[in-house]
C-alpha cells in the first residue's frame, strides 16, 4: 500500500493559513493512498491561481501549465500515457472562466481524467474579482456595484453532456470529499468534482456559513436519473447538495480507437514506425512514363 507520507512535498505552501484548500489537499492524498497509486503513477495538471498550486504540495508528476489550459494539457498527457492517473486540480476561474471552452469540449471527448474544481466563487490570487461562479449581485473588488451576470452552471452542463461522473464536494468535509475523490479517480472516463472551497480572505461568507448549507445527497437519489441530477447540480447560491450527483457506467474513452489500432501502452514505449511505411508513400509519389 502507498502511505500518505509518500505524497509529502518539500515545497513551502503559499496558501493562506486556514484556507480550505488544505482540506482538498488532504482529501486528495487520502484518496490516492486508498487507491494505492504511487506518486510516479499520478500526473497532476493545473493552470494558474491559488488552487493551481496544489500539485506542488503533493509528490507526483506535475504539469503546472498556463491559466485556463490545464484540460488540453491533461488530454495530451492522457493520450500519450494512458496508464498514468491524470488529475486536473485548478480553480473555478481557471476551469470555468479562462478555460471554460476546453471543459465543454472535454465533456464531448470523455478522456479518462479527473477534473477537480476548487470552487471559491472568487478570483483570489488577483485579489477579489468576480469569478464565473460568483452569485449575481455580489459586490467585489472589481464589480463594485455587484455582479451583473448569473453564475455558470457547469455541473448541470456536464450532466447534459453525458459526463459519466459528476459530483460536488465540500472542502470542510475531508472524509466525505476523500471518498468522493476516490470514486471519481477510480471511475473510467471524465469525472468532474466541483469542490465548495470558501475563500477566507475575499469570500463573502465564512466557512461555517457554507457548513450550515451543505447537505449530503439523500441515499434515495438515483445517480442515473439525469433530471434529478440536474436538479441537484443547479447552483442556487445558498444550498449545496454534496456527494455523487450523476454516475453512469463507463462510456468509451478518448483515443480508444487509436489504442486498439496502434497499441495500448504509453506512446514513449511504441517503437517508431518502420521507415519502409514512409518510403512506400514516397514511392507512390513517383510518376513514370
Amino acid at each position, binding site marked *: 500500500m502507498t502511505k500518505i507520507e509518500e505524497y509529502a512535498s518539500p515545497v513551502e505552501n503559499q496558501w493562506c493559513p486556514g484556507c480550505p484548500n488544505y482540506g482538498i489537499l488532504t482529501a486528495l492524498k487520502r484518496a490516492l493512498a486508498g487507491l494505492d497509486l504511487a506518486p510516479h503513477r499520478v500526473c497532476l495538471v493545473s493552470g494558474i491561481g491559488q488552487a493551481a498550486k496544489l500539485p506542488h504540495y503533493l509528490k507526483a508528476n506535475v504539469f503546472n501549465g498556463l491559466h485556463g489550459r490545464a484540460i*488540453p*494539457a491533461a488530454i495530451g498527457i492522457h*493520450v500519450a500515457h494512458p496508464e498514468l492517473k491524470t488529475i486536473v486540480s485548478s480553480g473555478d476561474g481557471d476551469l470555468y472562466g479562462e478555460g471554460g471552452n476546453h471543459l465543454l469540449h472535454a465533456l464531448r471527448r470523455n478522456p479518462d481524467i479527473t477534473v477537480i474544481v476548487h470552487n471559491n466563487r472568487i478570483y483570489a490570487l488577483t485579489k477579489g474579482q468576480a469569478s464565473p461562479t460568483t452569485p449575481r449581485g455580489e459586490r467585489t473588488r472589481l464589480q463594485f456595484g455587484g455582479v451583473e451576470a448569473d453564475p455558470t452552471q457547469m455541473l448541470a452542463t456536464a450532466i447534459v453532456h453525458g459526463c459519466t461522473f459528476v459530483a460536488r464536494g465540500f472542502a470542510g468535509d475531508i472524509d466525505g470529499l476523500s471518498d468522493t475523490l476516490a470514486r471519481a479517480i477510480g471511475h473510467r472516463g471524465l469525472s468532474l468534482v466541483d469542490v465548495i472551497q470558501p475563500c477566507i480572505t475575499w469570500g463573502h461568507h465564512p466557512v461555517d456559513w457554507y457548513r450550515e448549507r451543505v447537505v449530503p445527497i439523500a441515499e434515495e437519489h438515483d445517480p442515473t436519473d439525469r433530471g434529478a441530477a440536474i436538479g441537484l447540480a443547479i447552483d442556487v447560491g445558498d444550498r449545496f447538495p454534496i456527494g455523487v450527483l450523476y454516475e453512469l457506467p463507463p462510456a468509451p474513452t478518448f483515443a480508444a480507437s487509436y489504442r486498439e489500432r496502434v497499441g495500448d501502452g504509453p506512446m514513449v514505449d511504441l517503437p517508431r514506425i518502420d521507415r519502409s*511505411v514512409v518510403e512506400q508513400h514516397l514511392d507512390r509519389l513517383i510518376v513514370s512514363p
Partner: protein
Amino acid sequence: MDRSLFVTGAAGEGIQTIGDVVARCFLRHGYPVFVSQEFESRIRGGHSSVRIRVADSPRNAPRADADVLLALNPSAEAHYADAVCADGLTISPQSLTAEANHLGVPFVPLATTHGGREVYANAVAAGSLCAAVGLPFAVLEAVLGETFEKRGDAVVRANVDSARAGFDEAADQLANEKTEIPPRRDMTYAFASAHGTIPLAAAAAGCRFIAAYPMSPSTGIITAFARHPELGVFAEQAEDEIAAINMTLGASAAGARAMTATSGGGFALMAEGLSLAGMIETPIVIVVAQRPGPATGLPTRTAQEDLLFAIRAGHGEFPRVVLAPSDPQDAIDLTIRAFDLADRHQVPAILLTDQFLADSSFSLDRLELPVEIPADHLADPTEMDTYARYAPSDGGASPRLAFGQGGHTVVLDSDEHTPEGHITEDLKAVRPRAVEKRLEKLRRLRSEIRPPIADRTDDAELILVGWGSTKHAIAEAVDLLRADGRKVGSVHFAELWPLPKVGPPAAKHTWTVEGNATGQLAQLLRGELGWPIDKTIGRWDGLPIDARFLVQHLTEKTP
C-alpha cells in the same frame, strides 16, 4: 520547352481535377511539371486557377503568364485574359469565332452528346487542352483510366469518350497550326507538395501526436495523418489553437514526439503556449503556414509576412528554432531536423511554410528520407537515483524524462522554477541561473544552425538574398539575368533562427527578396548580422514571387 498552362474557372467547377489529369499526362509523357494554385476563399463561384508549368528539366517555380488559357466559363476567360502571352492560345466554351488564337469548344454540349452527362464537361476540356499542347490522346486515355478506375468502367468510358470529343474538336480547329508534339521520354519524377511530405517526414521522425485546428493553408498537415492511419500518428481536431498547442505540449511531456500546424492567426493564439514550451523546456514542432494578414487577411493567398512573428512570438525570453523549407525534399529534411533540434535542445521548433508551398506540386528527380534519422533523446530513468528535471547541465538542456518513466516523478511548471521544477521566487540563486540555463541553449543552437546556401556569388555584383519558398524563383531569376550578361548571384536561408553567425557576402550590392512589404529578412540581417542590405524587392499582393517579377524589377531599377 517551357510552357505555362492555366486551367481556370469557378470554385467547385472542377479545375483541380483537370489540372491534375493534364499534369499527370505530361509526367507520363516524361516531362516534369510544376503545378501551383490560386483561388478565392469560397466554396463555390469566383475565379480560380490551376497553373501548370511544363519544361524539359524541373522548373519548380511559378510563371505569371499563360501560353495556353483554358477557361471553363466566360467570366474566367475575361478575368485571366491579361495573363495570356502575345502568341498564346485561349480555349473557352464560347462558340467558334474567327479570332486567331482562340478555340471555342462547347464543353457541356459535347459532354452530353459523348458522355451522356454534363458532368463530363471537364473531360472534354482536358481533352481540348491536351490537343492544344500536342499531347497524344493515348496518354490522356491512360491517365483518365487510372484517375477514375475506382469509379467503374462506365465512368472511365464516359470520361474517355468525352475527352476524345474535346480532343478532336480542338485538333480540328488547330488543323492548320498544329502544335509541336514533344517526344515521349523515359524520365521519371517524384511529384509532390511540401505539405504532402511534411507529415511523412514527421512520422519517420517518430511523431505520434498532432492536435490542430483547421486553418488555411495548414489544414492538409493534420488531414494527411487522419487519412493515413498506417503512419501511426494520433490526430485530434482541437477546439481552438490554444487547446491544440497545450494538448501538443501535454503529449510531449508524457513522452510522445508531438506537433501542431496552423497559420498566422492561429499561431497568434498559440503564442502563450509557445512561451510555455520555452519555459518548461518541452520539445514540440509547429508548422506555421503563412498567408497574408493582418487579421484574417487573404485566407487562400500567399505571403512571407510572419518571419519576424515566428522569431519573436511569445512573451519573455526563450530559445526556439525557425526553419523554412523551399520544396518537398527540403521539407522532409527540415521536418526531421526540426524534431531532432527540438528534442535535443528541448525547445519549440517552427517550420515556416506558406500557401504557395502548401498548394504547389513539384517535380523532383528523387524524393527520399535521409539515411540516418536521429533517435529520441529522452534520458534513461534507470541511470539515476533521484531526478530533477532542470538539473544544471552542460549546454543548458538537462537530462529529460517524460512523465511516468521509471519510478521517478517529473515536475514541470510555467512559473519560474527550481531545478526540481517547483515554483519559486528566489530572485538571488534560482532566477538568474534559470534564465542563463535557458538562453545557453540558444548559444548551442546557434553553433549548430546551418549557414545559408550561396549560389553563383563569386563574381556577383548583385546578390539576391531570400528565404523559404522563393528559392527556386530566385534561382531562375539568376539564370535569366546571367543569360543577359548580368553578374547576379543568390544566398538562400533555410535555417533562420537562431541566425547563423556569417558575414555579409562580398558583392557590391545585396538585396533581399521577400513576400512582404517591410523587408523582414533585411531587418534581421541588418540588425542581427550587420549585413549592409541596400534594398528589398518585396511582393505583398498575395501572389507568389516569380522569376519574371524579379527580372522586371531589376531591369527597371538597375543598381
